[in-house]
């Protein structure tokens, strides 16, 4: 199905007739996905939104259960419930890749996060191919293609003056069928070739991951820690950062426990009772963030956690630049092996010797 770019507003209106539809817009001092209001224009191109769509699946604050105490008796009531269906229109391939990574975190490895799943099941993602990456975008280096978004239900392929809607899931098929009905045959427009674009920034991510697996880059983390503010900007704006805290709102004998975003950049993130803190200094927290993005997540889930959207570079108040760090790691002169890497090598040598 071909839909003219001028018709995006009508498309959002049509979807909005039955469910909430989120489109790129401005709210609370930042561009983000905002609920579409009927009749307002919708533009999908241009710079990516500053706040990623993750809060639609994983809100900054989310109630988990309420508790009540009455004469020593405790009662609990879960807040988990099915979510109203909604559509997110105009997600970039980088952000769509981030949703796939959040799925790995919240839906796999033993426990299924019911709160996330309720929203995920209710969501229809309509991605749009990216034709205008800026100087801080490096998604291609992180294995994301600008013209594909495998996790999306529908992919809108930019063909000059129009988008071609390609359904990619059952949900997507149904959605596109409904759109065709709502927009009618008039939606067809002259479409050119698919617009092709590429990132200009291409840090050597694969090389960096490989080297992070073996070598000790403490000097890199220390030099970043020399200027990093350890504020939470990068983690809150990151489309894949998923760490959360569980806290509560208390009113006398009742209250609610909720989870809220947390950041590995904060001191109390790992602070234990008795004041022991395994990551007390700035460098160890910087290391944790980059190691988690570039290596630990890959160790656990088989792919890296960075999608190369460039948000943390654009908005870092201190000038921390993950692309520069990736390159610094990839091109650094040989570092000492970490103790863990030495152990792994020794084990393998032993195994080989036994084999021979």
């Amino acid at each position, binding site marked *: 199905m071909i839909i003219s770019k001028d018709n995006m507003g009508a498309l959002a209106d049509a979807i909005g007739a039955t469910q909430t539809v989120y489109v790129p817009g401005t709210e609370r001092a930042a561009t983000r996905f905002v609920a579409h209001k009927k009749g307002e224009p919708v533009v999908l191109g241009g710079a990516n939104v500053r706040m990623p769509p993750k809060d639609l699946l994983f809100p900054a604050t989310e109630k988990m259960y309420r508790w009540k105490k009455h004469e020593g008796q405790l009662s609990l009531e879960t807040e988990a419930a099915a979510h109203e269906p909604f559509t997110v229109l105009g997600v970039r391939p980088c952000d769509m890749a981030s949703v796939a990574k959040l799925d790995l975190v919240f839906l796999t490895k033993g426990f299924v996060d019911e709160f996330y799943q309720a929203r995920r099941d209710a969501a229809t993602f309509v991605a749009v191919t990216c034709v205008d990456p800026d100087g801080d975008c490096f998604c291609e280096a992180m294995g994301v293609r600008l013209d594909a978004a495998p996790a999306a239900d529908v992919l809108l392929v930019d063909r000059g003056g129009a988008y071609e809607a390609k359904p990619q899931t059952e949900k997507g098929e149904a959605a596109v069928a409904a759109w065709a009905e709502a927009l009618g045959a008039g939606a067809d427009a002259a479409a050119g070739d698919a617009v092709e674009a590429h990132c200009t920034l291409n840090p050597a991510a694969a090389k960096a991951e490989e080297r992070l697996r073996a070598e000790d880059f403490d000097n890199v983390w220390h030099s970043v820690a020399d200027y990093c503010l350890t504020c939470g900007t990068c983690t809150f704006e990151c489309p894949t950062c998923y760490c959360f805290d569980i806290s509560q709102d208390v*009113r006398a004998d009742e209250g609610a426990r909720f989870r809220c975003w947390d950041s590995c950049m904060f001191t109390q993130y790992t602070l234990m009772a008795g004041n022991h803190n395994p990551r007390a200094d700035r460098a160890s927290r910087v290391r944790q963030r980059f190691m988690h993005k570039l290596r630990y997540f890959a160790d656990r889930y088989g792919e890296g956690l960075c999608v190369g959207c460039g948000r943390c570079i654009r908005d870092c108040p201190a000038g921390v630049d993950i692309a520069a760090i990736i390159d610094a790691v990839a091109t650094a002169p040989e570092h000492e092996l970490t103790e863990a890497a030495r152990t792994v090598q020794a084990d393998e040598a032993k195994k080989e010797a036994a084999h021979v």
Partner: protein
Amino acid sequence: MPIAETAHEAQGQANEEFRPKILAFCCNWCTYAGADLAGLNRMNYPADVKVLRVPCSGRVNPQHVLRALQDGCDGVLVCGCHPGDCHYSTGNYYAKRRMMVFKRLLEFEGLPPERFQIRWISGSEAGKFRDTIVQVTDDIKKLGPMAADEPSQAVVAALRAKEGEL
């Protein structure tokens, strides 16, 4: 927001007469004694004021004031000894400077001045204590609950319309 259904509460309050919740931080040595004296003299004053005894007006952390206003109080009153009469010599001098600046800061953020008031009331001024409570309660009743301060949609829309305002 409080867990209690504030909207529901506010509605209930609209139907009946609005009974404000006012928190009064009273210094142990002067104002609290003044309140005591007012009680001994059987003076009548509105029961909407909850007295919280503190060692000194200098003890009142401005955080407490803000937290009280956010967590359901419609007004806050901070009371202490007259300047020069502080039990600890100087506590209220510090409190005075601090509260002068903090009050202006809150008003700058849009808080109606009546919602946060400061008074010096000595141990013998039972009458002044009563009059202050009556006056503060009156002020707050006129203003209505905190929720009534919410800016109107028109103001918000006008502000949002001016691009670059935020």
